[in-house]
């Protein structure tokens, strides 16, 4: 096996705030110092990390900092990390949309990248015309599209609409058609950003299946960015964890996901008590707070706080693979006692296998705006995905606290 992608000392610097250093004179000063005098960028302060939630002193940040890695031909690699960790920047450089500030990337084979579904689709053109246009934008020759046209239409499942302008399509059909074109690219390397968030469950399954086929069946190299840990794990063998622009871990996907998931929890423990609300795991008999539930048969998860009767409450238990296996929600406001100081729900721990679990709870007000989340989630899309999880869903088993 040989190396398909080799990344050497790759860095990308972005400037925060307005474009330019602010004034044309500072731009000129910078240009003279860098290009004429051969000095380093005078406005770049080295050594500051790129953490989006912290205040920094420098205007310039490393979106990617000194990355070094190699990807073997035929590997499927998942790239994960929090928002702003540099995932998209890395993909943008690999797909030649932008250039690195320093360092090099060497690539063997044709690259097809799918950073967005339906790039270049023209709303006035029909599905047929858009297949040709989009295919050509992605790098296909006309003959190639001719040959695969029927296959693409079949895969997309929008045959009936193929001669209708795509502006009349539903958003799901639009995505189906667009992904179908991209999926039929002939390239040695396929780069896919989080694009499967749209489309119905059936189509998401088809997409993942197609990508699996591409990587396992045809031996092509796949780079896949996603916040959907279950999808990443089922598709990829290896994983890259990015944190604030640096490479934190490059290993087997299981290890990488584990590290990512537990990093997340550590950084958010302190939010668990806030604004007079509290959240605890308690034992049934004596109400004592527990961390280890292995010895108890029945676990009560309890949410306390004033004014909870007007809020929507939801909680989900996740397993180590980060799949929600158990969810419970309260939506209706009529049946609730106004003076209740909180709610609890019984969780049959006997149903749980041995292992570590993570509990997330969220309290929303009537406008569905989240007023409090006890544990941070990885992203909004993940939180919504919980509704699709395979676990049990209990709706009305909440009991008032006295």
């Amino acid at each position, binding site marked *: 096996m*040989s*190396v398909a992608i*080799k990344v050497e000392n790759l860095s990308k610097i*972005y400037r925060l705030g307005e*474009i*330019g250093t602010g004034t*044309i004179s500072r731009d000129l000063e910078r240009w003279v110092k860098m290009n004429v005098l051969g000095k380093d960028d005078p406005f770049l302060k080295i050594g500051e990390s790129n953490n989006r939630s912290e205040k920094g002193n420098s205007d310039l940040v490393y979106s990617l900092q000194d990355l070094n*890695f*190699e990807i*073997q031909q035929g*590997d499927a690699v998942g790239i994960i990390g929090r928002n702003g960790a540099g995932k998209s920047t890395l993909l*943008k*450089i*690999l*797909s*030649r*949309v*932008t*250039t*690195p*500030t*320093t*360092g*090099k*990337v*060497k*690539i*063997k*084979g*044709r*690259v097809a*990248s799918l*950073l*967005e579904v339906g*790039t*270049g689709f*023209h709303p*006035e*053109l029909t599905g047929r*015309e858009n297949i*040709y*246009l989009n295919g*050509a*934008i*992605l*790098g296909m*020759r*006309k003959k190639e599209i001719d040959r695969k046209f029927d296959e693409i239409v079949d895969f997309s499942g929008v045959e009936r609409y193929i001669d209708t*302008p795509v502006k009349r399509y539903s958003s799901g059909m639009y995505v189906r058609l667009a992904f179908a074109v991209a999926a039929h690219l002939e390239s040695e390397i396929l780069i896919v950003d989080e694009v499967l968030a749209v489309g119905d469950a059936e189509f998401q399954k088809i997409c993942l299946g197609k990508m699996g086929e591409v990587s396992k069946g045809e031996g092509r190299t796949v780079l896949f960015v996603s916040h959907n840990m279950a999808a990443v794990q089922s598709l990829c063998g*290896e994983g890259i964890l990015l944190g604030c622009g640096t490479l934190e871990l*490059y*290993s087997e996907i299981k290890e990488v996901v584990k590290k990512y998931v537990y990093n997340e929890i550590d950084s958010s423990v302190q939010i668990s008590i806030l604004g007079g609300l509290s959240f605890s795991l308690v034992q049934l008999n004596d109400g004592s707070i527990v961390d280890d539930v292995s010895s108890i048969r029945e676990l009560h998860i309890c949410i306390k706080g004033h004014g909870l009767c007007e809020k929507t409450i939801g909680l989900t238990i996740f397993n180590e693979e980060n799949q929600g296996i158990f969810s419970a929600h309260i939506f209706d406001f009529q049946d609730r006692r106004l003076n209740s100081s909180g709610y609890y729900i019984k969780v049959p721990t006997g149903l749980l296998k041995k292992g570590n679990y993570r509990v997330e709870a969220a309290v929303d007000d009537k406008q569905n705006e989240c007023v409090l989340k006890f544990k941070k989630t990885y992203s909004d899309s993940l939180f919504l995905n919980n509704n699709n999880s395979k676990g049990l869903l209990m709706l009305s088993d909440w009991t008032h606290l006295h």
Partner: protein
Amino acid sequence: MPNTIEQLNQDWDLTIAPQSSLFTLNLKDVWRYRDLLVLFVKRDFISFYKQTILGPLWFFIQPLFTTIIFTFIFGNLAGISTDGLPQPLFYMAGITAWNYFADCLTKTSTVFKDNANIFGKVYFPRLIMPLSIVASNLVRFMVQLLLFVIMIVYYAVKGANFHITWAIGLFPFLVLLMALLGLGLGLIITALTTKYRDLAFLITFGVQLMMYATTVIYPLSAAPIKYKHLIELNPMTGIIEAFRYGFLGQGELTLQSIGYSTVFTFISLILGVVIFNKTEKTFVDTI
């Protein structure tokens, strides 16, 4: 996989690095994407007349009405000379040629801004986009030229005072010059406006004003001596004069004037392509 042994002497198909030479044009890449160029032209053409009743006929309306207005204002009210040519023919020749150049220039000058979304998501040789603009305007130009030819035939039947000269053979060359001049200047402007947009404001009315500094509504022979050299400095003047001389037999076609336009065109084209090429790599970060 981590910890692999570095493989030496491997052939790479592609190396992505911060800087490359000013003159790496990747014309091979552009050629490989020629189908895309054709499809872009098709897209522009089809989307132009989708959901219209008159369809491609709309290409005629604009030059037709401009000619009528010009004939009325500059010909009848202002009484500007047309070198003895029928006024509608004189104006239409100027308008058709000028429009092609102006469309190429204005559309190319916003190519980065207009396509920031698509350029930010997928790679293809960026030069394809301005080239496709020039090509789709060429389609439009040819349709409008048809109108011009119809008018020529009409006036010829009526026995108006004009004649076609040998210089009509220069026509393909003149079209090429107009296309490349518009392209070159447009590329320079689009590259310069990714960071500071000031120039973009200038271009919208600048092109309009520039028309009056070109011999569109008056013949070069009617220009005051004082300003004649200034007007001749405009590279479009030589082209339009030659165009008119070819089709209508009136206009000042000299080797100097056409030579000057040619040199000017190629210098701006080379400059434009080089600046564009340098900008295309990072403009996504600054647009």
